[in-house]
């Protein structure tokens, strides 16, 4: 029988009268990888915030028994002292500081008034070695990729002599390759005796590494599945999460593919700062009524391709041509692109997509204010009515269209972002990571909506790092790597293995 490192017993947490957690209990064995899954809003983050002391003792009911004793954490410092380290989904690194400085931020080597830089860099290098980072510890955070930043966060946790590592959606912004590396790292930690709690929406990863899986739904523990004794396949987990079996995570669609509608020919884009081709002689086409996917690793140049086509807002020295419905168009500004009925639903709804401090109404109409204005004057009545209509069309769950975008959940924000671009009445849509970080239910709604779009004979180009999504949704798939299209598959040909191997073989050559 194994020892329990952590037991959380009958945890109940109220937010102004609303039960976020209701009598949640779960335990973590010493040295295991314990996954916690659940839809957005199921209470995962709240539970972890209680464990790490963000919500201090007294603000919740229930007990935390850690390392055999009852703990009453008053803040993050208390829990970190006991070796509990949480790595949040949004990385907490300072871009203009070096890797080593970040790693020991708040945990500086040497004395309070005399930092020992020699030790700082020495120790940083050691910890970086463990997580497989080969960069110089003097490198600035802003100069390394997101995947490596994630590794820095983990190295930072190691520097605090971690006993229980909590990772909240660690692979949400990582590509397949980096995700795999990270999961391998977790398994390696497990061998070294570090216990981990993994929170993830990516169920394939969960079933791959977790020893046990606790499923939360609506603030309550539903069940804990154990590897070896229970079925821990994706279907089984989803059943627990949503309380029903989703037969197919991707809605069916009858494809009726028409003429070529969006075509990019010999598209080459240089990096805005360096003498490097970000997109190298790319030619792709999308037909009417077709969903085409672009798969690839992070940094393959997929978003850059989309942004450079969409009014040249990225890159330098752009050459090549764009055809819409067979006619060549010059898209020199975003306005040109919008006027030509092209829409680019940006990845990262928070930084590039929405104006969080503004209400839903303003966000919905922003890309096509011409539709509700006359000689520059906005008809606020029409605006309100239109925003209502689009909100209903995409089933955005909110109290009213005057609610601020910042107060919505990720899935609903994504729907607002989609409504905004639908309001521009596009014929050709580029969707960049349309379902990142949103729950299974909202994903399904967005997939259904994409199917409606192509049923209306529109064309959709979808960039996604989630392989199942690409395989489940697209009629045709381009694989992009290091700025080039390296493969093209039809729906029937494509498989996860084929896509991965075309990326790897292209990188190797």
């Amino acid at each position, binding site marked *: 029988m194994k020892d329990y490192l952590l037991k959380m017993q009958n945890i109940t947490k109220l937010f102004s009268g609303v039960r976020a957690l209701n009598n949640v209990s779960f335990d973590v064995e010493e040295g295991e990888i314990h996954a916690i899954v659940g839809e957005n809003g199921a209470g995962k983050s709240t539970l972890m915030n209680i464990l790490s002391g963000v919500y201090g003792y007294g603000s919740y009911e229930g007990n935390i028994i850690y390392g055999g004793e009852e703990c009453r954490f008053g803040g993050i410092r208390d829990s970190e002292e006991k070796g509990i380290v949480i790595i949040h989904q949004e990385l907490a690194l300072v871009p203009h500081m070096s890797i080593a400085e970040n790693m020991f931020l708040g945990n500086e080597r040497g004395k309070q008034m005399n930092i020992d830089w020699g030790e700082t860099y020495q120790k940083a290098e050691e910890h970086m070695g463990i997580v497989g980072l080969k960069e110089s510890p003097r490198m600035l955070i802003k100069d390394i990729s997101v995947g490596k930043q994630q590794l820095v966060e983990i190295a930072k946790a190691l520097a605090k002599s971690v006993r229980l590592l909590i990772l909240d959606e660690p692979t949400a912004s990582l590509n397949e390759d980096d995700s795999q590396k990270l999961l391998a790292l977790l398994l390696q930690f497990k061998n070294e005796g570090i216990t981990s709690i993994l929170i993830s929406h990516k169920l394939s990863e969960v079933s791959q590494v977790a020893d046990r899986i606790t499923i939360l739904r609506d603030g309550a523990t539903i069940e804990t599945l154990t590897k070896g004794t229970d079925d821990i396949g994706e279907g089984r987990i989803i059943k627990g999460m949503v309380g029903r079996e989703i037969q197919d995570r991707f809605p069916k669609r009858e494809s009726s593919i028409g003429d070529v509608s969006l075509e990019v020919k010999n598209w080459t884009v240089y990096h805005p700062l360096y003498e490097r081709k970000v997109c190298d002689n790319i030619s792709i086409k999308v037909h009417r009524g077709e969903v085409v996917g672009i798969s690839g690793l992070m940094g393959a140049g997929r978003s850059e391709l989309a942004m450079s086509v969409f009014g040249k807002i990225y890159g330098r020295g752009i050459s090549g041509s764009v055809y819409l419905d067979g006619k060549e168009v010059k898209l020199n500004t975003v306005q040109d692109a919008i006027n030509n009925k092209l829409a680019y639903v940006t990845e990262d709804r928070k930084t590039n997509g929405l104006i969080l401090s503004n209400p839903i109404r303003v966000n919905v109409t922003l890309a096509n*204010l*011409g539709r509700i204005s006359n000689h520059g004057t*906005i008809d606020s009545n029409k605006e309100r009515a239109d925003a209502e209509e689009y909100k209903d069309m995409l089933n955005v769950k*909110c109290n009213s269209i005057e609610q601020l975008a910042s107060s919505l959940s990720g899935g609903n924000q994504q729907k607002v972002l989609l409504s905004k671009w639908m309001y521009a009445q596009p014929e050709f849509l580029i969707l960049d990571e349309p379902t990142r970080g949103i729950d299974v239910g909202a994903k399904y709604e967005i997939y259904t909506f994409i199917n409606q779009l192509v049923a209306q004979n529109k064309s959709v180009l979808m960039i996604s790092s989630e392989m199942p999504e690409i395989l489940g949704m697209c009629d045709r798939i381009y694989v992009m790597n290091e700025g080039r299209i390296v493969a093209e598959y039809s729906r029937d040909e494509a498989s996860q293995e084929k896509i991965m191997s075309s990326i790897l073989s292209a990188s190797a050559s």
Partner: protein
Amino acid sequence: MADIKKAPTSGKEPNPQERLDVPRANIGLEFVKKNTMLVALVAAMVLFQVLITINTGSGSFFSPANVTNLIAQNGYVVILASGMLLCILTGGNIDLSVGCGLAFIGAVAGELMVNRHMNIYLTIVICLLIGTALGAWQAFWIAYVRIPPFIVTLAGMLSFRGMAGILLGGLVISPFPQVYKRYFNSFLPGSATPADLLVPLTLVIGAIICAVFVIAQIYSRVSKIRKKYNVESPVVMIVRIVVICAVIMYVFWLFGHSKGMPVILITLAVVVAVYHYYTSKTVPGRHLYAMGGNEKAAIFSGIDTNKVLFFAYTNMGFLVAVASLVCVARFDSATPSAGNMYELDAIGACFIGGASAYGGVGTVSGAVIGAVFMGVLNNGMSILGVDANWQRTIKGFVLLAAVIMDVVSKKRRTVS
């Protein structure tokens, strides 16, 4: 209502219909929450009235002369705050050169109008053009070269003050022609009006304004109903109309007992109306909010944010010229030290009025309330005979308190 809201969605969310039927008490509470600064303003006025009555026995904050004075003293803040708001909306950017630009344009006006006896209308046009040009000069560096506004306008602050000194040679130009001052300092109805007709005639002006307001309200309601849009309950509308008309009539009654309606009020009303309309009802106005709220999202939505920023600062220059023309008329002189610290009054008014220090949030009406609030503080404390250093100290705390309130109330909203 029912035909717009189609499908009943998940049971959890409250139906918008229910929100309209909230009890009266909640409407009152909602109003206080939304208009915290307006309530605070009224409270401050009442407080001063009480303090003044206790301290002096005879004086009154709401005396006809004092209310007239309040408007004359703070006109420039309202004008500058309207322009400053646009800059702040683009992303918490401020313009430090405002007071010094005002001194320089005042000097130009004095030189042309007084020393060279140029036609006053031509002078006004030239001053407005120079103001706009100064604004455009700074706006170019800020918007297209992306030099931080703080630095560009700090440089402007130094050089405009210097240019004002050079032009005036360290002297004061005075007095300005009577014809010119008439447009900013006189009262309606004119001074020729017999004393016993002053109150009735002023009230007539007030009544006309009320009538226009009521007609506009009714027209907007009718057109909404015709297009089948939602309308607020008639009770709310009638209460609002009655309260606003009562305030207008009271203020005009006070004017009548002083010298009449100050004509500067017309300039102020036009400026406020134009900028309120621009920010709330136009596409370029919406672009200001979008840029300040999230510049990247704005760019991806097809907005030329450089142009937005350029306009905001060029416009600021224009309004500096307007405020300068108002100020030289009021002080009847152009001095090298004019407009000292005016930028801070304008910035303070915007923040007290609820503008976000990060941009993207704020209204012209808020900035006006902020400007009046600062004016009321100055005026009330002066009447009470509070020492100037104490006045500054208190104003500093009020500004900080306003921003703290804004930030804290927002935090609470995100937690719940």
